[in-house]
């Protein structure tokens, strides 16, 4: 039968040791006794204990000093200090040194049973908590930000630099560049990552609703406020708040938000009682805030508060080199969710994606790949799968080189990637074809790559 826990009883009086030994064994604990501080430390070296019951008055090293040494050896072991001479001073000294509890001899049986039971339950709950956090941390990874371009490497470096700090971060970038993903990565890299990341899409809410979302409200604060509600800053206690599209909020809410960032306290709508809040602020916008400031539509002081550390996310058209690995990432993602065995993107299809300007950035690319995978025949996505819904950028200049490249890739696709055969069809030698493909940055996307 498993014991309720391993106890170490340290007392210089034999009769006390024997009494506690027998009584706790009857209670179902595994008990080890020690007659002195030295004896206790020796026994700790040989065995791990959940809890030590330590007499405060012993010859040589007393209980408070022993407790300090015990914590050095095993910080997780809890200590209950026992005394025959209860005094406030010794109790305070013991508890200040980290004792879990302080009990006077003789003990009331119910009190000591509960104290030991509670201490061990507390320790096990803490251990379980740590284990679960480790499990969650290993299982739940923040969504991957994909990219190898120099612009994205700079973004990754910025996230790694600012993530572990408590600095307010302003993420800028066009719509669809991955601002929320970036915010999640910053939160994940921070010591706050075990606490919530609360996301508020400021642009999606009317002014009064946004106020209620951010600051909470009291019951009856407005029509429909049937219950007291915590605001995002309260919900995020100890974590982060991500204010998406912060450029869309009204001047009045900007004033309230500025006060929250300065004072670190909120007042619920309908209340006059301020509440202290602990959060890290991450904001994002696709607007040019300096322009909004010039137009008087954004408070400069709020901008300075938010713009402590800025991360600029590049548009996809400025990092087209990342398109193949982004496509690979999305194909893998949707293959799993759609249960389709797509493992290739034809060279002409990839060339098409490369030519497109992607005004909607990565989000548009993701949607395009998803749509293409719906219509694609296994195992390959072809140019036509995109052409159905994905228009080329209008007025795209079509140079002779563009035409040559498109023709070469089309022939290569018809030859199923066989360069020797394609060179014969094109009536050029294989080395020339190879050089042209290299010049166009063509890269075979195959099952291996995907």
């Amino acid at each position: 039968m498993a014991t309720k826990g391993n106890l170490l009883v340290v007392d210089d009086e034999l009769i006390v040791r024997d009494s506690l030994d027998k009584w706790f064994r009857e209670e179902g604990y595994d008990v080890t006794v020690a007659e002195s501080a030295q004896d206790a430390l020796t026994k700790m070296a040989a065995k791990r204990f959940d809890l030590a019951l330590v007499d405060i008055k012993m010859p040589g090293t007393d209980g408070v000093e022993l407790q300090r040494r015990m914590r050095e050896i095993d910080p997780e072991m809890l200590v209950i200090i026992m005394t025959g001479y209860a005094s406030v001073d010794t109790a305070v000294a013991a508890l200040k040194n980290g004792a879990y509890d302080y009990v006077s001899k003789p003990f009331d049986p119910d009190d000591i049973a509960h104290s030991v039971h509670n201490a061990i339950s507390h320790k096990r709950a803490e251990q379980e908590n740590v284990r679960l956090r480790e499990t969650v941390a290993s299982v739940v990874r923040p969504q991957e930000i994909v990219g190898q371009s120099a612009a994205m490497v700079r973004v990754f470096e910025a996230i790694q630099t600012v993530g572990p700090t408590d600095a307010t971060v302003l993420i800028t970038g066009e719509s669809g560049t991955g601002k929320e993903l970036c915010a999640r990565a910053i939160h994940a890299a921070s010591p706050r990552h075990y606490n919530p990341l609360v996301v508020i899409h400021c642009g999606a809410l009317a002014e009064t609703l946004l106020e209620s979302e951010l600051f909470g409200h009291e019951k009856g604060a407005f029509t429909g406020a049937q219950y007291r509600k915590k605001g995002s800053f309260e919900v995020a206690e100890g974590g982060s708040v991500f204010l998406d599209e912060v450029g869309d909020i009204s001047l009045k809410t900007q004033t309230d938000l500025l006060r929250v960032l300065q004072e670190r306290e909120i007042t619920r709508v309908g209340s006059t009682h301020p509440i202290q809040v602990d959060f890290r602020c991450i904001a994002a916008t696709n607007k040019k805030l300096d322009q909004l400031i010039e137009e008087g539509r954004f408070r400069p002081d709020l901008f300075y508060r938010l713009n402590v550390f800025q991360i600029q996310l590049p548009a996809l058209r400025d990092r087209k080199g990342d398109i193949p690995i982004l496509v690979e990432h999305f194909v893998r993602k949707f293959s799993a969710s759609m249960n389709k065995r797509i493992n290739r993107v034809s060279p002409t299809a990839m060339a098409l994606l490369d030519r497109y300007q992607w005004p909607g950035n990565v989000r548009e690319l993701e949607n395009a790949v998803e749509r293409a995978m719906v219509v694609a025949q296994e195992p390959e996505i072809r140019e036509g799968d995109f052409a159905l819904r994905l228009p080329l950028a209008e007025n795209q200049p079509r140079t002779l080189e563009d035409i040559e490249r498109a023709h070469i890739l089309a022939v290569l696709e018809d030859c199923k990637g066989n360069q020797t055969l394609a060179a014969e069809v094109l009536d050029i030698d294989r080395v020339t074809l190879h050089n042209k493909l290299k010049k166009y940055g063509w890269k075979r996307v195959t099952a291996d790559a995907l």
Partner: protein
Amino acid sequence: MEAGHCGRPVNLVQLLPFGPAAAETLSELRAGLEREFAVPCEILPPEPEPAFAFNLTRQQYSSTEILAAMLKRNTPAKWRLLGVTPVDLYIPILTFVFGEAQLPGTCAVVSSHRLSQEFYGLPADPRLQHERLLKEAVHELGHTLNLSHCEDYQCAMAPSHGVEWIDLKTSSFCGTCRTLVPTRSILNASR
């Protein structure tokens, strides 16, 4: 009681009164133990109040010293000697105990002192006191069979540090404790 049938670790329980005990109390206890353990139970001639175990400072009686005195009687391994006393018992580290037993062994002692309603300023209830005494007697005899405390609050081996806990439990072992009795008992070896 099954404990008596499963390997029969016990074949006789002796009740040894220390100090005055009502005949009705002892006979009720004997009947209850015979029912629970399915073995004969006999009442020995009473001993005087255990003055040898009295602690002047605490105004209580040391259960450990009473047990030590009982051990001198050399009770056979398959017998159990249960001391029954109206005096208030203690062990050095606790303010009081309802009883104490060898874990495992042949001797145990229980006190009726804190089992009466009068102790708590309530009207007397002899029947409730008899029930509590039987539960504590089964509990301490369970310790002599090497049973430790049980998490089943209805089991006789559930810890009871106050009478309210005693009232919650029954005088019988739970299924788990019942199965542990024969294997845990040291009483397989005959004297």
